[in-house]
């Protein structure tokens, strides 16, 4: 077994510097690396580029980094629900690269899997394809998209073991698996860190080879963005 455990979030983020590019897992506020984001705020690193499907809300998730003006550039597919984001984008303070969601996921996965680039039909004929190579395969047009390059990936899992193996819960899985091993260093925070041998290898979603540092996260808020329920009498 190759041990990946570190003492906590501070050790997990050692080496983080201004100007770096980070991948951050999560969809909306679901499955986001809450502890790593809090530590990035505490460290006050500046001019960072964040690859993340969304940009959080005003006072949670990546919104916390936006409040402190730590983000230079955001690479996302959808950035609604965040007024501070809109202000910084419209004023030109924040650079934004909007990318189709499936392309964003695949650019992470390509980095993980060693593909420099891939063809996708998404965005052909739109401004997303401007300046990019296009090519026809079997009568359909595709756009060449390149794999991301990042310094750190910050992911969040439900359970993990000392070897860095990860298991996710529900739709909190989202972008986290594709980001593992897609940056130079992958930091995984988990709700429950267990000894090696405690997870059934059949149930592991991400093998520990893709994770360099793992720690037990603290005080997960797991905020719900759109609480939608039905009443028992409606059933």
């Amino acid at each position, binding site marked *: 077994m190759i041990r990946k455990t570190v003492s906590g979030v501070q050790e997990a983020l050692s080496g983080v510097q201004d100007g770096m590019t980070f991948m951050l897992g999560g969809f909306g506020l679901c499955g986001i690396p809450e502890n790593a984001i809090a530590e990035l705020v505490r460290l006050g690193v500046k001019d960072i580029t964040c690859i993340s499907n969304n940009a959080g809300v005003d006072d949670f998730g990546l919104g916390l980094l936006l409040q402190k003006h730590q983000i230079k550039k955001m690479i996302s597919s959808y950035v609604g629900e965040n007024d501070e984001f809109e202000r910084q984008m419209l004023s030109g303070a924040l650079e934004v690269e909007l990318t*189709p969601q499936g392309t964003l996921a695949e650019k992470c996965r390509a980095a993980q899997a060693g593909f420099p680039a891939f063809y*996708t039909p998404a965005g052909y004929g739109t401004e997303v394809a401007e300046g990019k190579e296009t090519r026809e395969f079997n009568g359909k047009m595709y756009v060449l998209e390149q794999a991301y390059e990042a310094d750190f990936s910050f992911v969040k899992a439900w359970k993990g073991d000392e070897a860095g193996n990860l298991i996710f819960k529900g739709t909190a899985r*989202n972008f986290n698996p594709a980001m593992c091993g897609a940056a130079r260093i992958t930091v995984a925070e988990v709700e429950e860190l267990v000894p090696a041998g405690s997870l059934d290898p059949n149930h592991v979603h991400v093998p520990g080879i893709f994770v360099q540092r793992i720690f037990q996260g603290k005080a997960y808020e797991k905020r719900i963005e759109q609480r939608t*329920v*039905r009443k028992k009498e409606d059933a």
Partner: protein
Amino acid sequence: MLDKNGIAKRIAKEVKDGYYVNLGIGIPTLVANFVRDDIQVEFQSENGVLGMGPFPFEGEEDADIINAGKQTITTLPGASFFDSATSFGMIRGQHVHLTILGAMEVSEKGDIANWKIPGKMVKGMGGAMDLVASAENIIVAMMHTNRAGESKLLKQCSLPLTGVGCVKKIVTNLAVLEVTDEGFLLLERAPGTTVEAIRAATEGTLVVPAQVPEMKLD
């Protein structure tokens, strides 16, 4: 003229036995409420779930189980969770049979615009560009005109495009239309809506056959 639930009800009739279906945010989400219960259908949400069920009961919501609109949901027997790359593999690989989504504009060539109003609103395309570029069967659910009363069925889209030549069918509050080489082919009228009213609300080329039946919603 139909309301949003009426549009959803009409689109639900397009959902066939054995379909995996992706529903966009807004009117498309309502379609799930009207699908016949004697057919087998699974709803996919691109954030990583197949077999989506209704909203949870109060007190049973789980922050880790949401749909692409970030709403808390439940799952049905047979459901599965997966990561985003796998999810878009299902979409790009055309394993999802039907995509239903909203639009700001649709052109008579089947182009769609629904992600950006330059200088005003930039929320991003989310999964829409992947969905429209890959799905074989795309239905647009929208109002026939915008809030200013202007037609959303145009000769050419004025807003930045989400996809090119991809929309096949459109269901609005006024009509069901098919995108053809000749333009928007008028298939059905909403209850109580005349062909003239539809023509007046359509900027793009409208092809009107001799008989245009009224929609049947039940």
